[in-house]
């Protein structure tokens, strides 16, 4: 550092350039750095207040049912023999419009600008591979979806425990929830993160990607509904129910919670329906991850 004296009234410091001789990570560190940066972007951290509206509105919306459920339990705790539950843990691991909208907004926001603003060459000039990039992006979106689906469950569980007659009895009576909920939420979050990120990777325009995410879910949902029909509870369901990529992870949720396909689902009555649901779930993930790895196979062959 050089110093220029200024007549005894002070000094101007030219700090120059200081080499870095501390610890330095490689691929793992770069991947984690990209994961953190993507999380910050998705949550609107270090961005304007407008970018924070979507994630935290979602968190509020998905937590409301838990708060209402606990509130009703508290108000009616001395009046009723049987507890009123407006929502069960299984139902709460579900697809809300807010969650869908969040995926359609955030996945394109995390993916598209990197390609549109041509940031990718800067990233891949670092110790980072295409697989690392995909892992960081899917991990970031998946972590947020997990957190936003899991936190309300925690609120519900702790709230129910506290308003019950015996917190210990409630806890010991619901031990299965402690593994079923996290497993189901992981399956749900991973699925929507991979599908949302894969679709967003196909274009550099956020609005197109968002519309494609919503369009895919809606169109497959409508197509499946038409093919399966309305009377599936009486006439039995159909494998065509698996066309509906929107609710596909809910069949796995039912397998986790119930051990079989829900009798009220459009897959009811189908032989090995649960097995087909698992295979379709895995197939969708494999296709989407394949698309992502191909899109970010940065090094030429």
């Amino acid at each position: 550092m050089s110093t220029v004296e200024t007549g005894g009234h002070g000094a101007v410091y030219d700090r120059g350039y200081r080499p870095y001789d501390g610890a330095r990570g490689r691929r793992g560190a770069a991947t984690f750095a990209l994961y953190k940066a993507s999380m910050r972007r998705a949550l609107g951290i270090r961005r304007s207040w407008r970018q924070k509206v979507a994630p935290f509105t979602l968190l509020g919306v998905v937590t409301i049912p838990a708060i209402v459920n606990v509130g009703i339990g508290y108000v009616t705790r001395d009046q009723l023999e049987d507890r009123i539950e407006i929502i069960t843990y299984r139902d709460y691991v579900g697809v809300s419009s807010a969650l869908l909208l969040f995926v359609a907004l955030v996945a394109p926001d995390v993916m598209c600008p990197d390609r549109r603003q041509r940031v990718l060459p800067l990233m891949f000039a670092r110790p980072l591979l295409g697989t690392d990039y995909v892992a960081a992006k899917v991990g970031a979106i998946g972590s947020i979806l997990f957190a936003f689906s899991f936190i309300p469950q925690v609120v519900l569980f702790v709230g129910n425990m506290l308003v019950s007659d015996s917190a210990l009895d409630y806890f010991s009576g619901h031990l299965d929830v402690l593994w079923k909920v996290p497993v189901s939420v992981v399956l749900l979050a991973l699925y929507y993160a991979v599908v949302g990120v894969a679709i967003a990777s196909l274009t550099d325009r956020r609005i197109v990607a968002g519309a494609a995410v919503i369009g895919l879910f809606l169109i497959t949902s409508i197509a499946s509904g038409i093919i399966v029909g309305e009377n599936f509870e009486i006439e039995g369901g159909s494998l065509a129910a698996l066309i509906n990529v929107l609710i596909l992870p809910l069949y796995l949720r039912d397998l986790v919670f119930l051990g079989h396909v829900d009798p009220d689902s459009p897959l009811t009555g189908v032989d090995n329906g649960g097995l087909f649901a698992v295979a379709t779930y895995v197939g969708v993930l494999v296709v989407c991850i394949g698309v992502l790895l191909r899109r970010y196979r940065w090094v030429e062959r």
Partner: protein
Amino acid sequence: MDDGPLLRIDGLTKRYPGVTALDDLTVTVPRGRIGLVGANGAGKTTTFRLLLGLAHPTEGRVEVCGIDVAHDPIGVRSRLGYMPEHDCLPLDQTAADVVSTFGELSGLPARAARQRASDILDLVGLDEARFRPISGFSTGMRQRTKLAQALVGDPELILLDEPTAGLDPLGREEMLALVARLGTFGISVLMATHLLDDVQQVCDYVVMIDAGKLVVSGATDSLLERTGIVTVDVGPRGGELVEGLTKVGLASIAEDGLVEVTIEGDDHMDIVRDVVADLGLPLYRLSTRLTSLDEVFLRRAGSAS
């Protein structure tokens, strides 16, 4: 730091369908400020991609800072900084966030990356603008931000692709001054450009390529040849000098306040000096005019083809 050559390129060839971007390029480059010179499409960007390990050579091998790119591309990228020619910055983020994030992506811990981002933005003259979104930056400020993100990881070598592209004359001078300073920090620079003036001003070694082939490489000074013209600055009395030189048989012209004298050998230099002394003229400058890199490139590329 290793004292071996900066780059060792051996028989490097890169073919795309229908076009050969690099053709049997062999060159060894010392550490320092290097100019990679060539016309558009000469293979400069392909060379950068191969150095970064972002493309595989069809034939040949590349060593950067002693590391074989084919064997350890991640290790090479850990030692490099890269500033592309095109726009590549996230516009809705602040310069501090961008540079800090790229510091972390280079493997620095978060705290160190933030500290270095602050230092580097100060170094490139963006200390007061670092918390403003990049979308509001001028072209010059964006170029500086691009340079900062390349520097934040403390690279051994920094690859600059047309760093003065799109800059006004003042911005260009400031950018070149920054690039020149990098050498004093112990960072080697490989600057790809087609602006030979930039290279002549900043670089101490030049690699010239044309149509994927090596034209010539060497120290900048060694490539600049004498032209046989001496430039003499005697202030406003240049006319008197022209008359005096004509009397002793030397051809000269006065141009832009300077006198250019055609000479043959060092004896003529002595005659010029003596004429100036005899006429009692003030001698501000007496220098041999060298060829420009443009002339070297045009002549060598022409003879190669």
